[in-house]
């Protein structure tokens, strides 16, 4: 059977639709998810299909409705809460960090908080400092949370379905540029396992570990680098926590060189964690120091002349990759 080519947004919609059809305890809630269909149109017509109690418009009260999601999860439902931009998650940090993430441990393993918090991050659409951040490291820093960042429509659908079925609190971070991207997605049911990285392109000379939209940049860069004779392997962790370090390590053992690309800012970012883990696990296999490409330590500016300087690009990846072979 040939795969269909569909948009990232459509893949997410299908995941929501299928899981809501499958399990009456699944519902979604957030700003404009119902009547408007979601700011990124992921929840499109779910209110019409499943009713207003299952695709619920909320006031602009992030802490309140995220907390309602956490409480509903404790009481046995499976909410998918949409926080319109990841920047707004800062308003809901108590219920995410102190409540959802800790309930299972704090209550001795008996509590279940099967909530998925869908949100989107990333720069590149001139949304400026409060609508463009990549805050994944805020969540990967909290034990008890699972953090997922898909890069393709296939992964987005399969991972969202797995997330909805998972009994842990999950931060599911989409990228605002990715919604319009297209890719193959098979007809019918499939899941992508949480905690399993994916080698998006095989190569022998350099491993690029990239997350979310950076995977696309890395793949484009790899294409061009191949013309220069540099064979790049692109590894997408897909889930940041739990991290599939084995797949990453296997790749580095083969290529002996590691470039990390993550859109979060440099200081205490997720790239720093990947770098540390690489040194802990595959130091002996490295032929060169690990290099990380991140956003600059700066609020994301508005003007495109500035904004595109702030985060990693295909060109920056190509330059960084070449530097491994120029020494």
């Amino acid at each position: 059977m040939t795969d269909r080519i569909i948009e990232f947004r459509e893949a997410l919609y299908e995941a929501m639709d299928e899981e809501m059809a499958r399990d009456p305890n699944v519902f979604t809630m957030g700003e404009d998810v119902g009547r408007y269909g979601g700011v990124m149109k992921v929840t499109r017509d779910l209110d019409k299909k499943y009713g207003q109690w299952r695709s619920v418009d909320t006031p602009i009260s992030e802490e309140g409705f995220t907390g309602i999601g956490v409480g509903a999860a404790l009481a046995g439902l499976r909410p998918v809460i949409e926080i319109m931009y990841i920047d707004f998650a800062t308003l809901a940090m108590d219920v995410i960090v102190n409540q959802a993430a800790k309930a299972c441990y704090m209550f001795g393993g008996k509590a279940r908080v099967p909530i998925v918090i869908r949100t989107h991050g990333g720069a590149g659409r001139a949304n400026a400092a409060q609508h463009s951040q990549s805050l994944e490291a805020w969540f990967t820093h909290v034990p008890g949370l699972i953090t997922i960042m898909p890069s393709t429509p296939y992964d987005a659908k399969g991972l969202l379905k797995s997330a909805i079925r998972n009994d842990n609190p999950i931060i599911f971070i989409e990228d605002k540029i990715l919604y319009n991207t297209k890719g193959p997605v098979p007809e019918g049911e499939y899941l992508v396992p949480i905690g399993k990285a994916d080698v998006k392109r095989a190569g022998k000379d350099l491993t690029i570990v990239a997350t979310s939209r950076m995977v696309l940049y890395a793949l484009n860069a790899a294409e061009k680098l191949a013309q220069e004779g540099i064979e790049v392997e692109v590894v997408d962790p897909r889930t940041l926590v739990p991290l599939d370090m084995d797949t990453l390590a296997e790749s580095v053992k083969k290529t002996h060189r590691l470039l990390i690309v993550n859109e979060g800012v440099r200081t205490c970012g997720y790239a720093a964690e990947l770098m540390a883990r690489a040194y802990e696990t595959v130091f002996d296999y490295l032929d060169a120091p690990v290099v990380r490409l991140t956003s600059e330590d700066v609020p994301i500016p508005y003007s495109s002349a500035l904004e595109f300087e702030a985060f990693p690009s295909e060109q920056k990846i190509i330059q960084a990759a070449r530097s491994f072979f120029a020494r």
Partner: protein
Amino acid sequence: MDTKDQKYIEMFRQMHLIRAFEEQTVKLYMKNIVKGSTHVYVGQEAIAVGVSAALIPGDYITSTHRGHGHCLARGGDPNKMMAELMGRATGYCKGKGGSMHIADLDLGILGANGIVGGGISLATGAAYACKYRNDGHVTVCFFGDGGINQGVFYEVANMAAMWKLPIIYVCERNQFQEFGYSEWYYADQDLTKRTEPFGFKGIEVDGNDVLAVYTVADQCVQKARSGDGPSLIIANTYRIYGHTVGDPLTYRRPGEVEVWKDENHDPILRFKKYLIREEILPEHECDAIQKSAAQVIEQAVEFAINSPMPDPTTLLEDIYVKE
């Protein structure tokens, strides 16, 4: 004996159970057997017990950092509670939670909470689940006169009213927020107004009169069960001990606590007087209930002390649900 009398006697027993539990907790804290941040419920027993008397199995509650009373009133196991306070493997949370994080999901107790006001949105979510399932159950959200100043309360009170959620917000106005008087932090001392804009003005009740609390709670619970939405109860009471055990209470007005401990104020002494006056229970039987409650708690202390500490190898267990 009619069922009403039986119910009252059970409520009286629960109040004593809570008082005895808390008095033991203070003693154990002083001996450094119970540690950390421990907040006791002495003087507020009528609220947990009066509200819980209006609930049925399957209803939910959320509790606070001062949560032992709520847990006991909803049928929590004193052995597992005391073991948790002592950090034992047999505790409700296997020693991982302590005083501020006791939960019994099977009893609908969705947890005490270390964040002031932290349970308010969670309770509203549990009420959403009740409404979603349309199962006739309700959620009670206990919080205090500190918690009522958290902004999230107004976010979820709005949504609870919009969606007519079956929730009863119970503000236990014990007159303190942490290390000071809560009245210092109110622009208007009338807390019933706080939810008036959402269409459900608060109802004030004498929080040291267990039957008054029960009556008001019962009305609010019935309103919630019949789909008529949220309520706010402001239960006036007094925090007999400090914020935490060991609080030097330098800020408390002299002479005040003595008044609240006298027979006209103490909720247990008041209820005892009522039970005797109404010939529901003679004095010697009241005293017998007190004694037996004390014994139950002494046994809980024994159980906890004789329980093992958690195995250090369990440190990293239960962070995630294993799929």
